[in-house]
């Protein structure tokens, strides 16, 4: 095989892997939108908050330590030296469920039957409030997140592909980050679990019923509020997974909340109501932007296509298929 072809395959592979990372964020958006019609602008901040909380538990950080010390003149920083990863993840999950409950009690409950734009605005407020709370609780230093997921280039893949290039060519194997392979495996497990949950459990069926028709679901006795808490808790869990993956890659810091911006073009492509759409959309965006940066980036003086090309793809898609690949077609009857 020629080195150019191998490089092309490598770019596509890396694009697919990046796409999975975007899909992890997009999945949270889709779940909430499907169940409650709310476009949760705070999903990126959820990922940040989950990652901050996880590191906080892992390292035994005292929440709101800065505030407590300032108010009472104390000097508390850590409860304990470290906590096992499993326990820290479990506690973070509990925290995210508690957060979902609080959001339902304080925000959603009071906005039932309001226009979608009101709910959207509420989630914008929620995003900023949660970011502020995260800052107060855990501080804004860059934090190292390590839950034992390996990272770095895959040596196995490098060695397996080095011989594929034509003899004598200057090629040293294909590169894929092991962290991204793990993200793919976790995303697959997540999607399969979600599919099984919604197909084969009573709660899952209730969730689908609410997603299909709120009024009909209410009329057969499904509690809308419990379903909302459940959905927000699940999307909190997905945010935690996304936060772990992104946080492992770059360290946990406040720019993590901006990963939500990467999910927007994914949602436009895949549709706001489709879980497979979030996955396929993510993969398309990932591959598209990597190919654009590497193969046509050089023709642009400003470069850096990687960040904005996804939006170009989304815009083009909007023109031809506004509901996305797998989204429900919006039909307004008069």
């Amino acid at each position: 095989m020629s080195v150019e072809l191998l490089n092309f395959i490598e770019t596509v592979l890396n694009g697919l892997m990046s796409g999975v990372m975007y899909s992890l964020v997009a999945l949270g958006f889709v779940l909430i939108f499907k169940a409650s019609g709310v476009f949760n602008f705070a999903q990126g901040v959820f990922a940040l908050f989950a990652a901050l909380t996880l590191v906080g538990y892992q390292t035994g950080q005292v929440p709101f330590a800065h505030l407590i010390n300032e108010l009472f003149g104390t000097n508390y920083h850590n409860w304990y030296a470290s906590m096992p990863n499993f326990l820290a993840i479990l506690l973070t999950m509990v925290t995210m469920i508690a957060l979902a409950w609080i959001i339902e009690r304080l925000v959603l409950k009071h906005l039932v039957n309001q226009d979608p734009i009101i709910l959207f605005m509420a989630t914008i407020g929620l995003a900023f409030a949660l970011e502020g709370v995260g800052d107060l609780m855990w501080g804004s230093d860059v934090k190292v997140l390590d839950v034992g997921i390996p990272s770095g280039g895959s040596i196995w893949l490098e060695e397996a592909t080095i011989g594929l290039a034509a003899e004598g060519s200057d090629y040293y194997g294909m590169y894929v980050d092991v962290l991204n392979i793990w993200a793919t495996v976790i995303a697959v497990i997540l999607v399969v679990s979600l599919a099984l949950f919604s197909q084969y459990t009573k709660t899952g069926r209730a969730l689908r019923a609410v997603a299909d028709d709120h009024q009909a679901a209410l009329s057969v006795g499904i509690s809308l509020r419990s379903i909302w808490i459940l959905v927000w808790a699940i999307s909190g869990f997905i945010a935690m997974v996304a936060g772990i993956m992104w946080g492992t890659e770059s360290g946990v810091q406040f720019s993590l909340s901006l990963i939500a911006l990467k999910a927007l073009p994914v949602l436009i492509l895949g549709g706001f109501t489709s879980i497979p759409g979030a996955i396929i959309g993510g993969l398309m965006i990932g591959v598209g932007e990597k190919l654009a940066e590497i193969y046509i980036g050089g023709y642009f003086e400003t470069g850096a296509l990687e960040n904005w090309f996804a939006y170009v793809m989304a815009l083009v898609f909007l023109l031809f298929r506004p509901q996305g690949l797998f989204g429900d077609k919006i039909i307004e009857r008069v």
Partner: protein
Amino acid sequence: MRIKQLLIGMTASVIAVSSYVEMAIADLKFPMLVYRTGAYAPNGIPNADGFVDYYKMINARDGGIGGEKILHPECETGYKTQVGVECYEKNKKDAMVFQPMSTGITYQLIPKATADGVTIYSTGYGRTSAANGKVFKWVFNAPVTYWDGASIAVRHILKQNFGNIKGKKIALVYHNSAYGKEPIRTLETLSKKHGFKLMLLPVDHPGQEQKATWLKIRKARPDNVLMWGWGVMNQVAIKSAASIKFPMDKFIGIWWSGSENDVLPAGQGAHGYKSLTFNAPGTNYQVHADIKKFVHDKGEASGDGSHFGTVLYNRGLFQAMVQVEAATVAQKIHGTSKITPAMYRDGFENINLSAKRLEELGFKDFAPPFKITCENHGGSGLAAVQQWDAKAKKWNMITEYMYGDSSVVQKLIAEDSSKYAAEQKIAERCG
């Protein structure tokens, strides 16, 4: 009714008293443009803490500058240019100096501050050609500029290659902003001079995703990578470089890409990463002892005190020290402690931070000496290379402070500043 009147009266009294107190202590106003929130907060906080702790120490230890207390109101910019300009407008009245802490904000403030008669001090950032004091009367960027930085990095690479880098490939990974683009011109000139091939790789804000950039580097296999990054961009770049097994000792960041924040997330992978610096890390300096005694031990530390001695905290100390020194010099020149913004600028232009003076100020061996003159607002142009030891989790200085290629840098500064002077119709000064 009485209670209402009483409350109104009390509120009015509190406002009146607090205004009086503020006026009484607002002798020297050093407004701070900070970013303690947002994507760049992890870097903005330690830097701002360094400033605040130094000002508090001067107020506590010396009773201010020449007896005049320092007032340092903070304005949060979030590293956003627009907000930075608003902060300037809000705080410019009676302000001695502004430290914009962003090249984008600095570019916007240069014409405004020049018109308003307010000093701008962009320490090792901002518009490089502002080093030409003949054109930029109100702007200072000492002790070293980005163009010096670019040529010092190339000088270091030259030394490693026994003076010959012809045919070598050097990549520049840069923040796609006014800051990141600043060294391009110098590197292009140096590539012609030394015969190396320059590869430009911009990364958009915030830089969380750089996979394609590093795939390009893996394919092109440059001999060295330089980085002009900030915030999360640095952490992701260093981690990505380690992931593609790029030799870390061939990866050199500018001084804003060389803090503990940048290397710690990459763990052992960051071992050997280099960056330029113009100040030392650590706490073994007299200034730290004084801050501990007069500020931290009294429970007055800015933030939780956890950044004490880090690279960016120490840089904040250095920046604040230069600003305070300018006021001291101005007071001496004009024979009054109650200086005006115009007098303060005169002080800045006559700063002479010799080794002896640095020692007196508690900064012995902390940074190289430098002097500011009417012609030269860029200082010494000296920077050193530091290298990260991931096992010991500390930066080690591995070179002496060195100069850049002044034959290239000075020519570019003259060209760019003349162009600016022509555009703005500024007559050159300094006789």
